[in-house]
Structures are given as C-alpha cells and as structure tokens.
C-alpha cells in the first residue's frame, strides 16, 4: 500500500517537473519573441545606413547591430578554422592510433580542457596577449586574433571528442574490409572510415560553432569592446553579439536601447537554433552523400 502510494507520487511529480521545466523555457522564449519581434527589422541591424553599402563596406553603421553581427561572424570563422585541423587530427589519433594507455592519458587532459571554465581560458588568452606585448611587439594587445585563438582552444576538446566518438562507433565490418584487401591504415582512414563518420564529425563541428557564437566570458577578457565598428585587421578590437547583450543589460540608457538588446538576443538565439537544426540535418544526410556521391 505504501509502495503503490510512493510509486504514484513519483509518477505524478515526474510529470509535474517535466511540465515545469518546459514551461519555464517556453515562457523565456515566448517572452523574448514578444519583446524582440517588434524591433526585429532592417533598422535594428543597419540603423539608418543602406544595407548594401554597409555589406560592401562603403558606409559605416552607427546605430545598428551590423558591426556586432560581423564581429561574431569573423570570430566564428576564424576560431573554427584554427581549431578544426588540430582537433580532427587529435581525434583521429585517439580513435585510430593511440595505444589504450596513451589514449586514457590524453583523454584525461581533454576532459580537463573541456571542463575548464571559459573565463579561465579567457584569462589565459589575456595573459598570453600581455606576455607578447611585453616581450615581442607593442602592437599586440587583446584583439580579434587573440579572441579567436582562445575560442579555438575552448572548443578544441569538443571537436576532438566528437571526431573520436564518430570514428570509434563505426562497426567492425566497415573497419576491416579495406585492410583485408590490402589498404594501408591511412588509406582505410581517408577512403573508408572518415567518409563513414563524416556526418557525426560535421554535426559535432556545427555544435561547437554554436559555442563560439554564444560564448561571452572568453571574449570579454580578450578584446571585445562595446563600440569598435567592423574590425579592420586581426589585431584590432571588435564588437560581438553576446557581449553587446551583456553590455546593454547593465548600461542601457533608454527603452529604445533596451529593445535593441531584446532584438540582439533574438538574433543570437536564431543563429544558435539554425546551427542546431543544421547539425541534426547533417547527421541524417551527409554520410549517405559522402559515400554514394549523390
């Protein structure tokens, strides 16, 4: 009797907790849409400037989010380009070459790397910048390049792990056929294993792009500022969407600025949602294409 009562209570509470969790999140998103949709539009991004002129770099945007959007875009492209070769290669090593003991030891480091708070990575990037400034060149200070390097370091363990897991989860028949026919390890890797694992690797990469786009703690120590315009070089300071949201939350002067903050939230959430959906679609379709070239 006591037992059935407990079972019924737990069942009820479980459904209730699920309901609470999703209502909170749906309420958050609904509130964001309610506040952000009315401001969403051309003037939110481009202000008074003509969009074409702004995109072509002929005119500066003063009261729009365009520089922040471009800053985030540069940041994502740069840090992904920096992290990909090292991350994928390290993942391949762990999955295909490392002896078990070495694999465990490396795994320990990458678990720590994945757990290091992003602000500590930012602090590391900042320290490196200060170090370079003192000992090598006075021109180096926290900037777009330092941020991109730090972000690349932040997402490195995710890329390593998703590459490793994607390769390790391939079934033995796929793994053994090509070597049995005389292929070398590298040929097996390039022509068989990577194409089969590609969709999972790419969807891991897309999710780590999302992390680059949303991270605020790393960039706030390594060169992001509230107003900088579109960065002119790798060594200049820049704006970024998540930092803009953080900045507005404390420094907004009037309702219009606050509304722009909600608009920025919505754009950032939209970017992350698109990346998330893309990752899911890639997971479903890419392997098929890579293998059968359709």
């Amino acid at each position, binding site marked *: 009797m006591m037992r059935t009562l407990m079972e019924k209570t737990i069942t009820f509470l479980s459904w209730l907790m699920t309901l609470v969790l999703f209502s909170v999140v749906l309420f958050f998103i609904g509130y964001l849409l309610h506040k952000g949709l009315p401001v969403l539009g051309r003037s939110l991004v481009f202000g008074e400037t003509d969009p074409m002129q702004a995109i072509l770099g002929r005119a500066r945007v003063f009261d729009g989010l365009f520089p922040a959007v471009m800053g985030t875009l540069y940041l994502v492209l740069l840090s992904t380009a920096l992290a990909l070769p090292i991350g994928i290669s390290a993942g391949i090593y762990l999955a295909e070459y490392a002896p078990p003991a070495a694999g465990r030891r490396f795994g320990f480091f990458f678990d720590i790397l994945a*757990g290091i708070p992003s602000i500590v990575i930012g602090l590391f990037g900042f320290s490196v910048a200060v170090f370079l400034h003192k000992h090598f060149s006075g021109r180096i200070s926290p900037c777009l390049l330092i941020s991109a390097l730090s972000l690349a370091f932040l997402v490195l363990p995710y890329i390593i792990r998703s590459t490793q897991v994607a390769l390790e989860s391939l079934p033995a028949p796929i793994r053994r056929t090509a070597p049995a026919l005389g292929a070398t390890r590298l040929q097996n890797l390039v022509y068989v294993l990577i194409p089969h694992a590609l969709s999972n690797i790419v969807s891991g990469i897309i999710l780590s792009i999302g992390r680059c786009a949303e991270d605020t703690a790393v960039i706030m120590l390594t060169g992001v500022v509230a107003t900088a315009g579109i960065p002119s070089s790798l060594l200049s300071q820049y704006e970024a969407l998540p930092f803009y949201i953080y900045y507005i939350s404390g420094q907004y002067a009037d309702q219009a600025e606050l509304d722009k903050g909600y608009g920025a939230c919505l754009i950032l959430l939209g970017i992350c949602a698109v990346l998330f959906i893309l990752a899911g679609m890639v997971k479903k379709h890419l392997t098929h294409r890579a293998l059968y070239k359709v």
Partner: protein
Amino acid sequence: MKTSGDAIAKAFFLSCAGISAVMTSAVFLFMIVLGLPLFRKGSFMDIWMGTWSPAEGVFGIGHMIAGTFWIAIPAVVLSLPLSLGTSFVIAGLGGPRLRETLISLVRFMTGIPTVIYGFLGIFLLVPLIREELGGPGMCVLAASMVLAVLITPTMVLFFSHSLMAVDPAHVQAARALGAGRIQRLLYVMLPEALGGMATGLVLALGRALGDTLIALMLAGNALGMPAGFLDPARTLTGHIALVQAADYDSLEFRSIFACGIALYLFTTASVIAVRFIERGKKEAA
C-alpha cells in the same frame, strides 16, 4: 612509399594530440607563474581563506570561493528534482514519440546562449525577487535559480542516457513479471543507472561552479560574505571578469590568477571524481 606516408600521418596526428595536451597544462603553469608575486607576498592561507581587504594589503579570495559554492550548490539542488523528473519521463514514463521530442528539446536547451538567460533574469526575475522578497534583487537566489535552469539540460541528458543504457533484457524480464512502467523504472533501471547519473551530477556541478555570466549579471558581485539567499555575492569567475586594474603588476590584479588556479583545481577534481565513479561502475559489472 606508402608506409612512410603512414608514418608521417601518424606523427602528425600524434603531435596534434600532444600540442592540445601541452596547452592544457600550459594554462595551469601560466597562472601559477603570473600569480607568484601574490603567493610570495601574503601568507599562503591568507590568499585562499582570507578576506578582501585592500586597505591592509590583503587580497584573499576566501569570500569568492564561498560565494561560488553559495550559488552553485543551491543551483544543483534546485535542478536535481527537475532533472530526475524529466529523465524519468524520457526514460520510462512517456512513450517513444514523446521521448524523441523531449530529447530534441533538451538538446536544443543546451544550446541556448548563457547570456540570454542572464539578460532575461535581470529583467524578469530580479524585479520579482526585489518586490516580493525584498533585498537588492540581484542576489544568490536569483543567480542560483537561473543557473539551475541552465544546468538542467546537461543533467537530464546524462540521467536519461544512463537510465536507457540499462540492459533491455533486465527491463523486459521485469515486464514479463508484471512490473508496470514506474516499477521497472524505480526497481530495475534506477539502481543500475546510479553510477552514470552520479557522473552527470558531478559534471553539472562543474558547470555551475565554472559559469561566469549568470553570477556576473544576477548575483550583484558585492565583495563580502553572503549571509543569506537574498544577499549579493561575488563568484571566482565574476571576480576574474570584473578586475580591470590598469596596473598589471598590482597585487589586486594578481589575485585573479589565484581565482583561476582555484577554478582549474575544481575542474581537475571533478574529472578525477568522474573517473573514480566510472572505474567503480566497471568493477561492479
């Protein structure tokens, strides 16, 4: 020719893994070297346990360590029932279609930018706490509540994954004996999944300790020891984000490296804890 290509490729892959591991250690070494002036100056215990009193030249981070746990522990406690309930529904109580939908939703939640949670917290939760419960509004409670929502998806994914990884033969045997959904969940799946769930709990605590934006935006960042949930507090991460000393050589600035070291050690401890749990699980099996 082919074999040498193979050897080169292997060396390249190994060096990439090596570089990543060396960089991970470099982070820790950098912080120790840059924090050295601080450790030379004050007594060792003063730094970790002491209070922040610039007038006396003491820059202890004891209150920041306390503030970090004041916010992270309640966040985990709040998140635990939410995560348990949701993972029970995903793993056993709901049907397969509901399971797919809920898992996709939870996965999506892990991708919602932290700064957006902070932004909404400032304009929705902080005024509510200020008016209903009093105090400054920006406080431990506001930060832990939002942090709980932030870490719940991580916990749910780990919990439901370990519950569903339980040997289906055991679950079906229980079913054949007439056990209902909740009975299979409580008496068959849950006991076997506890190890994996403990891993999820440790990782969620790690996320809560290491998060910067939520505490920075919602906890008020006051220096000093919080006496209750409605008091403001400063976390280790928030302290790093806030110190902007113009003088890189001042002890005040150096204190952020002590914070960095503390956070790095928390991370290492949690990784070791997870390894212990997993080893225990293997031995039990």
